[in-house]
């Protein structure tokens, strides 16, 4: 089929579906983290390491998508949103899964028997982060609708509602983190090294929630910026 001249070339690479796929990978990584903590609770360290590898895999898949978008969204494409805003948003969204990878590794640094009460609080934090991620996914899935309606006001309003909900949930994550910190530094019977490591977990879990909120904010900016 060499003999034809095509008008189809006028349609360029669309980064929006890959963006959603990338976000879904982030959500799945958080799900795996939850499982990893469960395995940790059961002292099943084989599973902990296996889950770390699975998260690594998701992260590298997400990296591929990120690279694809970054290389294909060239200046000669006319997108309904600003190219810079889009790439900046992608960068922050990628931070979500990068931080998941960090935590996944941190769980394998040391095999410890952690107190029930502390682990329970970690589970609370994780499920809140998961809730936040689900809300984020609901937001990002509006992309298709936004494009279909070419950024109709009503559709934009729906997205903004999701962003606000993500921010509210992230704030709750912050509060749980504060509680966890207090709990950790007051568990006199725990070994200082263990406290130190767990504190790093809390901080990095916080980074995940933070990245979700910042990505949502970037998404909102991207829509407002058009």
């Amino acid at each position, binding site marked *: *089929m*060499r*003999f*034809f*001249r*095509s*008008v*189809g*070339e*006028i*349609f*360029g*690479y*669309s*980064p*929006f579906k890959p963006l959603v796929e990338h976000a879904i990978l982030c959500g799945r990584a958080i799900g795996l983290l939850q499982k990893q903590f469960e395995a940790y609770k059961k002292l099943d360290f084989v599973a902990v390491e296996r889950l770390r590898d699975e998260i690594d895999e998701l992260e590298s898949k997400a990296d591929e998508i990120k690279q694809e978008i970054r290389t294909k969204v060239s200046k*000669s*494409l*006319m*997108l*309904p949103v600003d190219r810079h805003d889009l790439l900046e948003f992608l960068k922050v969204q990628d931070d979500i899964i990068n931080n998941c990878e960090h935590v996944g590794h941190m769980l394998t640094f040391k095999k410890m028997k952690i107190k029930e009460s502390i682990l329970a609080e970690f589970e609370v934090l994780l499920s809140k982060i998961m809730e936040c991620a689900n809300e984020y996914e609901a937001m990002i899935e509006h992309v298709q*609708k936004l*494009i*279909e*309606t*070419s*950024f*109709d*006001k*009503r559709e934009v309003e729906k997205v903004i509602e999701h962003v606000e909900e993500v921010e509210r949930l992230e704030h709750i994550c912050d509060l749980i983190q504060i509680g966890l910190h207090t709990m950790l530094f007051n568990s006199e019977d725990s070994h200082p090294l263990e406290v130190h490591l767990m504190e790093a977990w809390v901080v990095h879990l916080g980074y995940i929630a933070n990245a979700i909120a910042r990505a949502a904010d970037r998404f909102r900016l991207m829509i407002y910026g*058009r």
Partner: protein
Amino acid sequence: MEILLIIAIFVSFYVAWNIGANDAANSMATSYGSRALSLRQIILVCALLEFLGASLYGKNVVKTIAKGIVPIEALDPHLVVYGMVAALLSAGLWITIATYLHLPISTTHSIVGAVLGFGIAAVSQRHLEISMIKWSEVYRIMMSWAISPIMGAVLAFTIFYMIRILLFRRFDAGSVERIFRYLQVFTACYVAFAHGSNDVANAVAPLAPIFGLTAKGYYEIPREILMFGGLGIAIGVATWGYRVIRMVGENITQLTFTRGFSAEFATATTVLSASALGLPISTTHTLVGSVIGVGLAGGIASVNLKVVQKIIFSWILTMPITMFLSIGIYTVMVVFL
């Protein structure tokens, strides 16, 4: 002489076939891409309306290319036949090469360049004065090449913007799209008709002076020639165009019903206006302009503006190439025949 007539008819048919296979198919691919019509329906509608557009509305553009650029009445009828055959051969040759190289060239630019080449050759051989070439008409045609994609863009932008304001804001996007699925059948026909009316000239305009010479010494444009061109285009669509429709259509899923409607309506209106004014313009380039217009109205996820560069490049390339080809072929014919 008879052999020249046969060559002329043959090449003219080949160019018409090419227009049907490539350009008509491209214009219709939007309807296939948005799945408004099935492939079979598109081919049927396309072939029929291209034919009708060509035979009912193609005359003005044929007139422009046949006698609006070179004052053929001032030339010996033999030279006119040579010139027109040379123009057809050059255009046909360049279209074939460019298609092979995947250049987004326009058959319109090719034939206009080729006919102008014949005129310039006639000037250089002192059969015509340089001032006798209708430069103002050439200028008007070239202006229309720049204006038509812009007009397509402005119209498409306006139409899609209105759809956004009047419909998307009030109704669910999904149900709006469903209604436009049917409206797009209409615009698809509109495009095919407009395309036939404008592009048929690229294939058959040189035949008019060959077969249209009246006893009184001036040139008419026989309706049979328009019908012949329309038939060639229709056959092009049916025998090869369907593949192009399928290939292009699969790449343009970004064009939903409302977007397709806007782009097609804008393109067809622009092209049909040009046909009425006797201006030979490129339907494909107008369609590209229209798609950009929809994109500017925020309707398309990603528009590749590199194509614009390619099109401008092919503009610059096509005119001189077909012109020189035609000068060469014409001169050879005058010297040896």
